[in-house]
């Protein structure tokens, strides 16, 4: 079984400031890692994913995440946020083999203010 912990339920930040959203996971099998974004009243959209290779993954809208196997973490970062980045961000994992599905964390609400 897998579990995902997002340590911050809410992260307030000023526009143009850097941000880091934290994610830790637990799994007895190898997993893929994902970050999804959910804008108000919309479905989930994939930001980025880690499958293998370089531990630094770049995604859409200037976001990036770094996989740290020893710390079982997959933190999301952006060097300079915009008002439009205000949304809920979900970290998720999926087993590598077989019929897989996503196990999500509880989400982190990113609140960007001017």
């Amino acid at each position: 079984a897998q579990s995902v912990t997002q340590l911050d339920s809410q992260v307030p930040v000023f526009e143009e400031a850097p941000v880091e959203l934290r994610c830790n996971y637990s799994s007895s099998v190898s997993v893929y890692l994902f970050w999804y974004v959910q804008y108000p009243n919309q479905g989930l959209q994939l930001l980025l994913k880690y499958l293998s290779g370089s531990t630094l993954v770049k995604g859409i809208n200037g976001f990036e995440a770094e996989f740290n196997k020893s710390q079982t973490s997959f933190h999301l970062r952006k060097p300079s946020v915009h008002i439009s980045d205000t949304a809920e961000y979900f970290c998720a994992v999926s087993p590598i083999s077989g019929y897989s599905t996503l196990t999500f964390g509880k989400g982190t609400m990113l609140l960007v203010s001017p």
Partner: protein
Amino acid sequence: EAGVAQSPRYKIIEKRQSVAFWCNPISGHATLYWYQQILGQGPKLLIQFQNNGVVDDSQLPKDRFSAERLKGVDSTLKIQPAKLEDSAVYLCASSPGTGFGNTEAFFGQGTRLTVV
């Protein structure tokens, strides 16, 4: 390319009533998922279909929830009878593959259910 379509967008019902949600996945996508997202929590998988067969329904409360995927395309999720704790957003997603490694899952906008 059309996305995953869900209807209705919003539904308010009284407890003990029944309700049904509909999902039309992206054309050609073999895998379809239903997730339940309770306010303040991450989405939780209810059921996963591969074509018209059920792959995983271990977290589906089968005494009140049911789902089907006719002809491996559209899917309906039903709750009968509804409880207050069923208030949530019900998300449908589809994927062309069997897993998330080599393919991407696409999510619909969801149906927000309020049980009063």
